[in-house]
């Protein structure tokens, strides 16, 4: 049985009147406001918007790390109540466990399911092969480059066969060339499995290259100001980036983002507000 067959059907997202408040007391604010949209199973959706607009907040709520203050959020008819392996999350910076070798990091989800060591390592090797890193199974994460770390991260999430793949600017910290390689790799993998992807980015090129559909968000409080369907044929090649239709849509998106006022907002994360540098509470 191939891996692709083992993936269950992709998830359907139904969001209605979703608002999320962040912060507490007088600093509390509405990060996203009255969002309503549906995503059909297997769709590749990009959420495009300026920094701090609440797109990562929406992703955090889909993952189950943030609780909505009003509205409903359902995946396959079930309300989202907390994190689940069926909704895989990839952060901008990798979150591999530094004390586990690459292979054991990938096998982590299976270990949590109680699957035996030999079987989970066999599957982990298979998924590492998917992202082209089978030769790095025995390395520590600290020995890998940024692009390789994100590949491992993707393999680690996919091993749980998620119905939903949530990605928070996963290639935002990579150099331009690595980023475009990663985009092609992601499309290739997505072509082989049935999973819905929600991909957050502020990079217009990236959104246009990857998505079936782009939801453009306004600055805080985040609302959708455009729902754009793309029908570029797949598999997509880098030549697409210079085609006339691509450039026309890019201009359209630039226009949408430019019309928004130029306030610079601090970046939000899928876990809420960014942490301030906390000082240790004890003198040691």
């Amino acid at each position, binding site marked *: 049985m191939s891996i692709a067959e083992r993936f269950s059907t992709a998830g359907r997202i139904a969001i209605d009147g979703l608002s999320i408040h962040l912060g507490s007391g007088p600093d509390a604010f509405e990060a996203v406001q009255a969002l309503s949209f549906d995503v059909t199973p297997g769709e590749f959706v990009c959420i495009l918007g300026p920094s701090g607009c609440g797109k990562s907040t929406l992703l955090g709520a889909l993952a189950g*790390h943030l609780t909505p203050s009003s509205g409903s959020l359902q995946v396959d008819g079930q309300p989202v109540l907390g994190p689940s392996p069926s909704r895989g999350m990839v952060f901008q910076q990798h*979150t591999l466990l530094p004390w586990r070798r690459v292979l054991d990091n990938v096998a982590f989800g299976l270990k*949590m399911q109680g699957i035996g060591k030999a079987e989970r390592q066999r599957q982990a090797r298979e998924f590492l092969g998917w992202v082209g890193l089978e030769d790095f199974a025995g390395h520590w994460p600290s020995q890998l480059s940024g692009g390789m770390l994100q590949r491992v991260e993707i393999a680690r999430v996919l091993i749980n066969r998620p119905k939903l793949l949530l990605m928070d600017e996963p290639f935002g910290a990579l150099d331009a060339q690595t980023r475009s390689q990663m985009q092609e790799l992601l499309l290739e993998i997505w072509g082989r499995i049935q999973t819905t992807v929600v991909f957050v980015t502020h990079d217009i090129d990236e959104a246009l290259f990857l998505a079936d559909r782009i939801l453009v968000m306004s600055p805080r409080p985040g609302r959708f100001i455009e729902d754009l369907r793309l029908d570029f044929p797949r598999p997509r090649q880098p030549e697409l980036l210079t085609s006339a239709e691509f450039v026309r849509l890019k201009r359209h998106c630039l226009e949408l983002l430019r019309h928004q006022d130029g306030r610079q907002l601090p970046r939000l994360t899928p876990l809420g507000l960014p942490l301030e540098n906390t000082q240790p509470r004890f003198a*040691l």
Partner: protein
Amino acid sequence: MSRLSVDLGRRWSLRLASLLLCLGFWQVAARMHLDLGLVTFRNVPSPVEVVQAAWALFNSHALPRHLLSSLGRVASGYLAAALVAVALGLAIGRSKWAEDLLLPPLEVLRPIPAVAWIPLAILMFPSSELSMIFITFTGALFPILLNTVHGVESVDRRLIASARSLGAGRLAILREVVLPGAAPSIVTGLSIGMGTSWFCLVTAEMISGQWGIGYYTWEAYTLQNYADIIVGMLLIGVLGMASSGLVKRLGTRLTPWYRPQEKHG
């Protein structure tokens, strides 16, 4: 020879020279009965006298019993402290509730010096052996506890969120993420705690009737055998340093992914 080993050789000769210089100064100052006004070496035994006293101790049958008694006390007090402190530290670091419940009394107890515990220790424990172990326990407890709490609180919360998304429950997060994440800090605490446990040994063995390096030192003081005092002090110093180093080494082997930055210059 490669540059690296030349460098290493130079560093080791510097270390050795520093030790020899200190010894040399001590010998000269003690021999000349040097009086610097604020501090005087008039009654300080010279290194040669100390070596003679050490030789006498090493040739007596008492040394193994002194050593074994002290090692046993430090080891029991330290192990108990390590278990209690790591468990408490994990709870306090993970839960606000445990923090509010446990931290206030611990913060009150923390500044109390070991010597002040002696009367209570004698009252609370049935045997003097247990009272002594308790004193070495108080010495090791707080460095390990505070370093554990600090380590647990500085674990990246994204790692915890990510593990939850991959299906980890509360216990699995503690075992797979929090404990290894805090491990380097816990190892630091364990190594400091080993030192402070020895630090309290003389205090603890003031209670003892007969055996122990701390007792030997204390007895030498009451009998005014100054050379013996210094032998006792140095023995405690060397044993403390060796056991701290051992803990640090074991800790490094247990955290192979963690390599602190090298110091330069």
